[in-house]
Structures are given as C-alpha cells and as structure tokens.
C-alpha cells in the first residue's frame, strides 16, 4: 500500500497512516529526546524516509511498526548525541516529600516528575525503549517485540527490569499507601 509502481504516493493512505500514528510517535520521540522540536524532526524524518524510499508495506500495521522502530532509533540517536549522561541517584523519592500521606494514591510532584524523567533517560536503551513503548505508545508485549525484533518473553523481562531499576532509585516511599 501507499505506492503503486512509479506513480505518485497514495495521499489518502499516507494521511490515514499519519492520523493513526503521528500523536503516538510524537509522544514516544518527545519522551526520549526531551524536546518538541527534536521530536518533530525525528518523526518528520521517519515519514520522509517512508515516502522517499517508497517503502512497500502489506498493511497499515506493518507501516506503523516500521515507523515506531525508526522513530525509536532516531530518538535514541538524538538523545545520545545530546550527550545525556547516565546518572545514578541514591534516592529520588523521599517519603517526607510525598504529600499523598492520608490519600489513597501516590502523588508525583514537579521535582519528582523531573527526577523520574531523568531516571527514565538514564536507563539502558534496551530497557528504556520497552518502557517508553509500553507507557507512551500503549503497545502490548507482542507489539513491542515486533517493533524491537525481540521475543515477547524478552519484552516481559525487560519491562520488569526497567520498572525495578526505576523503583530502586525512587526509594521505598514510592507507592506507599498510608
């Protein structure tokens, strides 16, 4: 779909693909690169590559997974280029900052959200990619495995390890219900 021999692209199909994927792709890219302009560039370049190479896809889903993979790789490259450092925090989340004492749900404060974001950035790429695709692209394990080219079992393990790595840095107070 999208392209017929050497003719012009199928506009309707390309727009449908864009409408179906662009919001999610922007979210994924923005979460990894940390800025809207860079995220737009990554997503833009992915679509341009699809159009210019006249990529043949048997279905919209195949195109979607290809785009997610390209955006993921492009975003990680940009983040790497920005020179983000892997930093370890001993404690990010302190129980005394948790204003949810007395409420049923833990609350994320601004400074903690920033620390959480930095923590996500500091994850190894393999773990970060799985968590971002799970939490921001809304993909299930099977779909994430398809994008990353790994097994569903591998996705499950990475999701678990990513969560544990982040939680280890947030401290015991995270998610506490008083």
């Amino acid at each position, binding site marked *: 779909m999208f392209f017929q021999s050497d003719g*012009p*692209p199928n*506009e309707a199909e*390309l*727009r449908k693909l*864009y409408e179906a994927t*662009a*919001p999610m792709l*922007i*979210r994924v890219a*923005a*979460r990894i690169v940390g*800025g*809207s302009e860079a*995220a*737009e560039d990554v*997503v*833009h*370049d992915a*679509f*341009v*590559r699809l*159009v*210019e*190479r006249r990529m043949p896809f048997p279905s919209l889903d195949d195109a979607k997974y290809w785009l997610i993979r390209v955006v993921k790789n*492009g975003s990680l*490259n940009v983040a*790497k*280029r920005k020179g983000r450092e892997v930093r370890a925090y001993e404690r990010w989340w302190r129980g005394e900052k948790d204003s949810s004492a007395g409420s049923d*749900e*833990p609350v*994320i404060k*601004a400074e*903690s*959200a920033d620390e*959480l*974001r930095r923590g*996500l950035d500091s994850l190894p790429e393999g773990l970060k990619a799985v*968590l971002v695709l*799970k*939490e*921001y692209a809304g993909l*299930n*394990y099977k779909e994430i495995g398809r994008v990353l080219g790994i097994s569903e079992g591998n996705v*499950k*393990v990475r*999701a*678990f390890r990513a*969560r*544990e790595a*982040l*939680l280890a840095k*947030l401290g015991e107070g*995270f*998610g*506490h*219900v008083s």
Partner: protein
Amino acid sequence: MCPDRQLISSYVDGEVPSPWKERIAEHLASCPDCAKAARRYTALAGGLAAIPGSDEAASLTRLRARLEPRFSGIERRPREGGFARGPQGRYIVLPLPIAAGIAFFFLAGFGAMLAFSPSAMASRAAMRSMAASAAELQARPVSSLEAATSMEDLLSMLDSQSSPITLTIQLPAGTTLRDSGEPRIIRAPARDEPKTGLVPVSVPAAAPTAKAQEDSP
C-alpha cells in the same frame, strides 16, 4: 506461595491470560507484599504518564505542515544518481543533482580562485589548494548500509554517526562536465542602493568576474 514479581509486573500490564489473571488477582487481595508491589508498578506507570510533556497539538500541527507536500507527491527526490562510497565497499547513494551540485561547488570554488588570481603560479596554488581540500574531505565511517536519497537524509545519517567516516564521492559513469560561458556577477549593489551590511568586493576592471550558474540542479 507468592507469584514471581515479574509475573506481577506482567499482570499490571494486562498481559497475563485467564485463568492465571484471576488467580493472581485473588492472591493480591490477601497478600500485602504482593499488593504493594502491584501498587508500585501501577504508581510508576501513573508517574511516567504524568511527566509534563511538550505541546503535542502544536507539534502535530507543525509536523503536518511539513509533511503535507510529501504526501501529495509535490516534493519527490529522484532515486538514481551519483553514489558515494564508504569503507568496505559500502555505498551512500546520492541523487545525481546533489552529486553534481557537490562537484559544481568544488569547480566553482576553483574557478573563482582562478578568476581572481589569474597568474599561473596562483593557478597552481589554487589547484594544490583544491586538491588538499578534496583530500581533507573526511567524512565519518558509515556504520550501516543505507541509501540516502536526499541531502537531508545524508546529513541526518552523517550526523547520527559518532565517529569519523571516510567518504568518497564519485559521479555516475558517463557524466561529463563542460565549460559554460564566461563568469559574471548576477547582481552587485548599485552605488545608490541602501547598504545591507555586506562587504563590497572590489574587482579589477580587466579581470574576469565569477559567474553563478543560473540553471541550478
């Protein structure tokens, strides 16, 4: 007996099928430790979702405007053209207009040097300089085989490389270049035109002037 924490993680993700899903739910209702683990995973997901993001709507609007010409086929890049060769025989494909454009800039620079330094010695110096410039054109190694079909693609790909690469640019076989007219200035500021901040260049009246190609690729 408590389930593995990894299983609780999968359960929170909705990835555990029945009947195991129901059994885990039953266990969580009676096991404080496992329930706490599940709450932490759920809270983490909520925390990640709550991280303030950029203005998504604005991004989508800008992105759509940039991509619209591509979708409608207005902007198309030709796939055939010159190619650049990296190490181990890996190739970067450049469209002919880009390869020709790169060659043109080398030649135009060379021509400009000749135009303003007409002596034979200056010509030889210019040729040595151009040769040195060409030899110094060090690009970074191509880490993966990709076909860049536009300058944008190529620059983006080169930008993504983290180490130096060697790039050799070859024009397609059979491409010939020819002299085209005498160099001349397309436009120069008139004496009474408001100054734009550009530095005027004085050219000897007898010396040939440089010409900018009008038929750009």
